[in-house]
């Protein structure tokens, strides 16, 4: 298996795994803590509209998707403040409308139709040098924002109104973060695809949450679990020749189940021990 390291595509895949782990680990922790998983699913599917338009106009589809999903993310963010709209219905509409726009434009594009499957389910083995640069750039931005605004992010996620009374620029930071959510999703479409990206933003966090109740620790565990699942998925995809996006997500789920088993076994042993110590 070591001969793999001689191939550029494999080195790129490894680097991409690491960058995916950092971006998804950090942003996913925010998404899960703020309970905006559904919004993020909406943003992810809407980005397909951007990909379709990009193809049709002959612009880089990923860059077009980035612009498209940041706009839709900020749109949902500002509309959700209005009390006369039902947020979940709005997201549901946006979710399917984005997909519809994407499909229409891809079919309108003359000539060879884009490889739809790779956008929907991702393919880590086709990651290019350019993708790596984009991912590295985003990783730096996300790390910078979380480094600078860590306490504000934590406090506004926990209690938005109280954060406002503490003079935290809640709207600005929320908009900044929802834009980063959109960018993270779009950048990771290359790796795990539009449909699967949401699992990368939630499963490692669920695993981390099994062993920690602290926001900061959950971030680091999520990164570790996301990286581990990418590597496991990559190897599995090579050995048994299955699509890498799906095998990465499946690995993440296996890690979750294993950890859940270990944790509940631990609880049971602890309980047994404390029962044994009772007199009589």
């Amino acid at each position, binding site marked *: 298996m070591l001969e793999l390291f001689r191939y550029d595509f494999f080195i790129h895949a490894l680097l991409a795994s690491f960058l995916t782990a950092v971006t998804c680990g950090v942003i996913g922790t925010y998404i899960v803590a703020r309970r905006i998983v559904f919004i993020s699913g909406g943003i992810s599917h809407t980005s397909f509209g951007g990909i379709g338009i990009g193809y049709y106009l002959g612009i880089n589809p990923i860059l077009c998707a980035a612009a498209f999903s940041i706009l839709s993310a900020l749109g949902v963010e500002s509309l959700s403040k209005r*009390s006369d709209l039902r947020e979940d219905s709005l997201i549901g509409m946006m979710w399917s409308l984005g997909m519809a726009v994407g499909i229409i434009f891809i079919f309108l594009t003359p000539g060879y139709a884009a490889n739809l499957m790779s956008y929907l389910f991702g393919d880590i083995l086709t990651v290019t040098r350019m993708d790596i640069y984009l991912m590295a750039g985003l990783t730096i931005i996300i790390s910078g924002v979380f480094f600078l605004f860590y*306490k*504000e992010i934590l*406090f506004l*996620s*926990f209690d938005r*109104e109280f954060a406002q*009374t503490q003079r935290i620029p809640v709207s600005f930071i929320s908009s900044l973060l929802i834009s980063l959510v959109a960018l993270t999703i779009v950048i990771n479409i290359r790796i795990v695809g539009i449909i699967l990206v949401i699992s990368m933003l939630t499963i490692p966090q669920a695993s981390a949450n099994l062993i920690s*109740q602290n926001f900061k620790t959950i971030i680091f565990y999520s990164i570790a679990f996301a990286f581990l699942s990418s590597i496991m998925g990559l190897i599995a995809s090579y050995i048994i020749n299955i699509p890498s996006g799906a095998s990465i997500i499946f690995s993440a789920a296996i890690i979750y189940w294993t950890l859940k088993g270990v944790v509940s076994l631990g609880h049971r042993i602890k309980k047994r021990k404390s029962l044994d110590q009772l007199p009589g």
Partner: protein
Amino acid sequence: MADKQKLVELNSISAGYQDRLVLENINLTLFEQDFLGVIGPNGSGKTTLLKTLLGLIKPFKGSIRFYFDHDNDHDPRKRIGYLPQQTMFDRKFPITVKDVVFSGLCSRVGLFKAFSNRDRELVDHTLESMGISELKHRSIGSLSGGQMQRVFLARALVSSPSILILDEPDTFVDQTFAHTFYETLKELNRQMAIILVSHDLGIISSHVKTIACINRTLYYHDSNIIDGKLLESYHCPIDLITHGDLPHRVLKKHGE
């Protein structure tokens, strides 16, 4: 009594949301050592009044003036401690007790800055005075209702505010804790003015010094005795006074 220091003055405030007017022409002055109980039916504008005071919403009309002495800071709202209603917050949120209390210091510390050793001491001290030092590293979701309420009170108090605002603090409090909680408030009232919003008229009348009844407009009552006549003359709906156990000395029967 006349030389008591003014803290806040609300002048003909009208406030609400989008095109909905909730509060109309509110006048209210809060003095040092005040313990003001705010009552009113659901949707009467109690929370809107608090939000206006806290600067969370801008009033449509009128003005708010703060009179804090020795205040070099241009943002007087840093001197307000706030205990929000507990129904909204996420019990599964991964945050420790210590961090929740730290969030009460944010406006003092400012953006881009980390908490200092002095801030850490303040947090430790406040946790200790609330008797919850040993819960410091626990996650908020693992606490009982009473413990949780103490944590949120600590968050409101850590910045040593001049005014403490409590929005229905009794919702999550069990009976045994309620007593200690109100004893604590009485103690705190020596150092700061308190505004308490509550549904529980019994609690209001046995702990506060003055009462404001809100129902779109505000009626101020310079004592803590609630009777039917008072509520009637203030247009507070009568069903409000039939809820809960009311001590007889507080509530006279109708027609008396």
